[in-house]
């Protein structure tokens, strides 16, 4: 499916999605956190889209917002798509976990939790994966300060 066909199909599911192809090689969908799990499971289960391969899951700090970027590919139709979800809550950012849809998300969400402090509902084993258990702060956030370990140029 081409990007425009995908956009037509997916926008018919939910009217609150934002589509964009600017500044990216993929079709980007921005979804509100409450629709995330519904949209992603639909993306996987629908025959025409069948995005069964989550090839990248990235945590993002956009400055004001925290977000997660999901790179999806269909191994059947070979098309790709990017799903983005953002929240302005920096104190207690929470999204729904997608690890029941793609098993690989279990590890990647742990990584995002470790570095950005984003929590995922229904995650079976959310813990600090790389950093020590007693580490304070989330190092990949833009406002993270560590005067001892960080070399700023």
């Amino acid at each position, binding site marked *: 499916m081409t990007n425009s066909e995908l956009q037509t199909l997916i926008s018919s599911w939910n009217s609150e999605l934002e589509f964009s192809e600017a500044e*990216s*090689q993929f079709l980007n969908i921005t979804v509100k956190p409450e629709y995330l799990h519904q949209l992603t499971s639909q993306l996987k289960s629908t025959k025409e889209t069948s995005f069964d*391969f989550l090839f*990248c899951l*990235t945590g993002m*700090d956009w400055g004001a917002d925290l977000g997660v970027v999901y790179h999806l590919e269909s*191994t059947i139709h070979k098309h790709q798509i990017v799903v983005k979800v953002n929240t302005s809550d920096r104190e207690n950012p929470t999204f729904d976990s997608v690890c029941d849809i793609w098993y*690989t998300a279990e590890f990647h969400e742990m990584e995002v939790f470790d570095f950005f402090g984003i929590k995922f509902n229904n995650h079976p084993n959310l813990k600090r994966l790389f950093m020590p258990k007693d580490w304070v702060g989330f190092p*990949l956030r833009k406002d993270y300060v560590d005067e001892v370990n*960080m070399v700023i140029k």
Partner: protein
Amino acid sequence: MTTTTENNAFKSQEYFINMGPQHPATHGVLRLLLTIDGEIIKNIDPDLGYIHRSIEKMCERDSYQQIVHLTDRMDYLSAHINNEAVCLAVENALGLEVPERVKVIRTIIAELTRLASHQLWWGVMGMDVGALTTYFYGFRDREMINDIFEETCGARLTMNYNIPGGLMFDLHPNFVQRVKDFIAHFKTKLPEYDTLLTGNVIFQKRTQGVGILTKEDAISFGTTGPVARASGFSCDVRKHHPYSAYDRVQFNEALFTVGDTFTRYQVRIQEMWESMAIIEQLIDNIPDGEFKTPTNAVIKLPKGEFYQRVETARGELGVFIVSDGKKNPYRLKFRSPGFSNLSALKKMAVGSKLGDLVAIMATLDIVVPDIDR
């Protein structure tokens, strides 16, 4: 209270065991918390981060030329391919056309890297299942490739041969002849590998039917590379999203269907043959020309998001660059193949024996710096 614990102690035969961070089978500082009942594995909980260096955070600080040097230290066995991933991402973002010569040389060296990585894996695989001699056979042949690399760019492992826009230096005059010598040598040695290990009954018994990963699970766990192709998941980036010179060479994607430890082994053996075929097609036709396209001393990517996928020896490496137009990336994410492959370990190994876990880990071909980054 005490009575219940005592009762539980009698009911449950399970106990905890720490595999790693210093353990011969984890090949680095990976720590697995195992729950074991006798010899049977009940649960696996990986504990990562023993050599986490926060490369992604360092990338946000560094310029793009500097980032290339950091990628060597991720998957050090595919150092060249990691470099290539970042360089390709930067070149695509800039719309920079690199000379044909660079594309061909990058492809040849990437395939040599893959061969070297698989040779090391083969040696270590044998060692993990108890055949210690294989280690030295694998290293004997890998040494020739390392010598070629040393002559080409001065380094044997962390090569730094790529820069955004091309290569650091031109090829050494001996390069073509030495690669041809190596291919001729290795074509006689690769069947030796089969005689020593593949055909061995004990080895086959140890690996066949062990650690099965179905195709659905392989896709869902995001496994790539030989691990996924053994399960029948056609995921070779060189085929599906060709980069450098892969669009002009003929090669087969090593695909199997069973998905057990033995087929993961077979995929890599077949990949070694395919890599040699790719090199043979290119080695006589290296185009003349420049070895780099000049770039600005300070590279500034346009605003936007850029994603580049390459096939390392372990699977798909993704580089996701978010740029805000400055000389360093706003955010750079490495989607490392080992990390996703490791997440499937629990699925494969739970229910099998301790000895099987070692064999499964060997065929995952884990490089811990690649997972920890």
